């Protein structure tokens, strides 16, 4: 055996991209369990079908690009995209909706831009927005939570996905929807009128958000990402809500707690905003990036056309990430403050 000639460092730490991705997948489990408990098997079927499609599309794309299949499939990034989209889509979504979404995410948002690591936009969020704009009916058809209506069984869930014509599902407006449509009630009355509300926010939604928060905290503990972007996003969302909330009327946009525990807030904060590929990189940059997403989420939720806003806010800030990075380059060792060698930002 000849002596190997490679340059330093010769040692490597324990972290690998595959392990990072597996950790992210694992961290979604509590949220998925809660969603399944409150909304039935729809989310699980979404995720499974999305995962199968994602692996298939990923394989096709890799084949077309003449990349080794096994090596790239093992980074599990396609599965993460599938899981996140599966969670974000309404349960009992038809098979073709998921197929269009995953196809868009993997083929266009990911591989057309150069594949893993090169995509400027979060693939799951691109797919979500494409579907929301193209198929608004299917995308806003949320099932009623346990306690506010009948839950379909597993067979119904499979039927809903693969033979949607035979599935006669009940849908109910989401709490964020309700709040948006009612401007002349007291919060208390709104709560009384609608069965979709729970203790602090939407029935089921609040626990799903708490579960995703728990998964996110575990990922923080595992050092999969830093606290900067999620905390900045949640704080700015809370700050916006407390600025505009008047304490009781449904016209004022809801309390900070309502916004934290509604819609995809926690999923967004810990699983979407933290996507390293499409976010700002420096720690200061991540604070800015997260805070702006939080503010945008509130703006779109309260004054925009769509009840939830994570996907739009994230995509808009994906655009801004390189710009944020440019202006938040850290001070390197041995350089005085503002002594960046960068001249193109300077006034000459």
């Amino acid at each position: 055996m000849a002596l190997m000639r490679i340059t330093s460092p010769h040692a490597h730490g324990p972290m690998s991209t595959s392990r990072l991705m597996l950790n992210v997948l694992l961290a979604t489990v509590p949220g998925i369990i809660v969603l399944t408990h409150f909304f039935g098997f729809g989310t699980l079927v979404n995720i499974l079908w999305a995962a199968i499609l994602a692996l298939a599309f990923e394989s096709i794309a890799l084949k077309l690009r003449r990349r080794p299949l096994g090596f790239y499939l093992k980074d599990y990034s396609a599965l993460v995209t599938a899981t996140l989209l599966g969670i974000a889509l309404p349960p009992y979504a038809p098979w073709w909706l998921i197929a269009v979404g995953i196809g868009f995410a993997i083929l266009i948002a990911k591989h057309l831009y150069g594949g893993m690591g090169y995509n400027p936009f979060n693939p799951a969020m691109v797919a979500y927005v494409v579907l929301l704009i193209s198929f608004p009916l299917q995308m806003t058809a949320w099932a009623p939570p346990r306690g506010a209506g009948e839950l379909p069984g597993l067979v119904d869930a499979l039927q809903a996905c693969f033979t949607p014509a035979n599935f006669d599902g009940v849908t109910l407006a989401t709490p964020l929807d309700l709040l948006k449509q009612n401007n002349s009630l007291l919060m208390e009355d709104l709560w009384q009128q609608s069965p979709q509300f729970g203790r602090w926010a939407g029935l089921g939604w609040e626990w799903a958000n708490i579960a995703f928060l728990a998964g996110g905290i575990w990922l923080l503990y595992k050092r999969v990402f830093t606290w900067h972007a999620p905390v900045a996003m949640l704080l700015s969302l809370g700050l916006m809500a407390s600025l505009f909330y008047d304490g009781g009327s449904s016209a004022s946009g809801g309390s900070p707690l309502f916004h934290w525990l509604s819609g995809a807030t926690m999923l967004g904060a810990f699983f979407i905003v933290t996507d390293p590929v499409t976010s700002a990189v420096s720690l200061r940059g991540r604070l800015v990036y997260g805070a702006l997403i939080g503010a945008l989420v509130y703006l779109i939720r309260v004054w925009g056309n769509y009840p939830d806003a994570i996907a739009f806010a994230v995509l808009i800030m994906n655009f801004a990430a390189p710009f944020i990075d440019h202006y938040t380059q850290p001070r390197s060792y041995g350089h005085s403050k503002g002594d960046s060698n960068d001249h193109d930002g300077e006034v000459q």
Partner: protein
Amino acid sequence: MRKIYSFHGGIHPPENKHQSVRTPIELAGIPEQLTIPLSQHIGAPSSPVVSVGERVLKGQMIAEARGFVSIPLHAPTSGTIDAIEDRIIAHPSGFPAPCIVIATDGDDHWIAHQGLEDYESLERTELVNQIRNAGIAGMGGAGFPTAVKLSIKPDIKITTLIINGTECEPYITADDVLMRERAQQIVQGAMILRHIINPQETVIGVEDNKPEGIASLQAAAKNTDIDVVQFPTKYPSGGEKQLIEILTGKQVPSGGLPSDIGVICQNVGTAVAIYNAIFAGEPLISRITTVTGQAVESPRNFDVLLGTPMDFLLEKAGYQRENNNRLIMGGPMMGFSTPRTDVPIVKTTNCILAPTESELPTPPPAQACIRCGLCAQACPASLLPQQMFWFSQGKEYEKLEDHNLFDCIECGACSWVCPSSIPLVQYYRSAKAEILQARRDNEKSEQSRARFEAREARLEQLALEREAKRAARKKAAEERAKKASSGEGEDPIQAAIERAKAKKAAQESS
């Protein structure tokens, strides 16, 4: 208690130091042949002053310094000069380089030498000269000539002298055992340095994973004002810039020297070498080298003559060649792999690491960068490694320099944390080399341009001068013609006829 500062980033790789500190330093003995590379330091290679066949004594100078940033070399033991030729040395390139080869005679016969009892009576410049003549270069890794580091401009005041006993790199324990066993010499060496530099304070900095070394240093420094300071273990605390920040809270300006902020840093091994040079009059001819890794049966530290082939030490430590996948000179973070097992130990060889494949696995193919930013969090220079990686790939050298590529100390922390196993440091090394080459090329073409322009100017000047002369001649001729036609002065034709007539008359008359 002294205030301890921290530096940005850093990592905590497995230390793997315990394996090689179980036994005391062992004398390696004299191998049959010593190979002394002429360039073991930063600066101009030394030039040989001996010839093949000549007998040399231990400690005899065999190559002299060439220029200011250079040092002499000495025979590590007595013997005969066998060859002066190119041999494979421990260099990442694997290229051969000029060496002096000594066939040892086993007598270990010293040349006459004498130490000083009272170094304080000597002029500082004389002490620095002795350090230069002893061939001492930084023993921590870089190998910068110590005398050059000590030749501080008179207008610079040094406030802090730091003796670096950090040894932050995994596996290496050469400095650790030195501190355990030769603390007295380190302190004495530090006292000499203190006398030369005259700083306000002298600090020996050690990571807190070496309690034995710290204890013996503290005992040795008891009656001096030298401060032995320990600080939390973190790689790369032992980097000069990082250690200075840990102990003083100050950062060395980019592109500057520690002396710019009043600090001088010397390795503990260098302090011992200075002690030997001044107190015993012995030049630097040996050092402590750790031999470790799972492919050696009994890892330990050797006191080894410079020029000893690596395999001589490896055999003594129970080397299992078949289990060894790569042989590293230095540690796992910054060491380089050697092409062969017989390359010689030099002044900067602090460690030979012979790992097995399971111990330091062959790196897997790199995956795509997912911009996770772990590298930026680990970077002790607060750089943005992944941005620099993109720029290196795209050969955007201007952007690389904007992102302070040249502040990278190549510690390897970014590569160590990279989940996609991207060999980041390799990209920076290559980019640095290409930028430096481009600068050299640029300088060269600048020079050629200047030369070309000077030549053009000279030719033009000559042409102008010729033209001026021609014009002057023409003008003179015209004026003469004008004078003739206007009747002024004699007619040249008439004059010629007159001259011919006179000549003829003279011939006839004779």
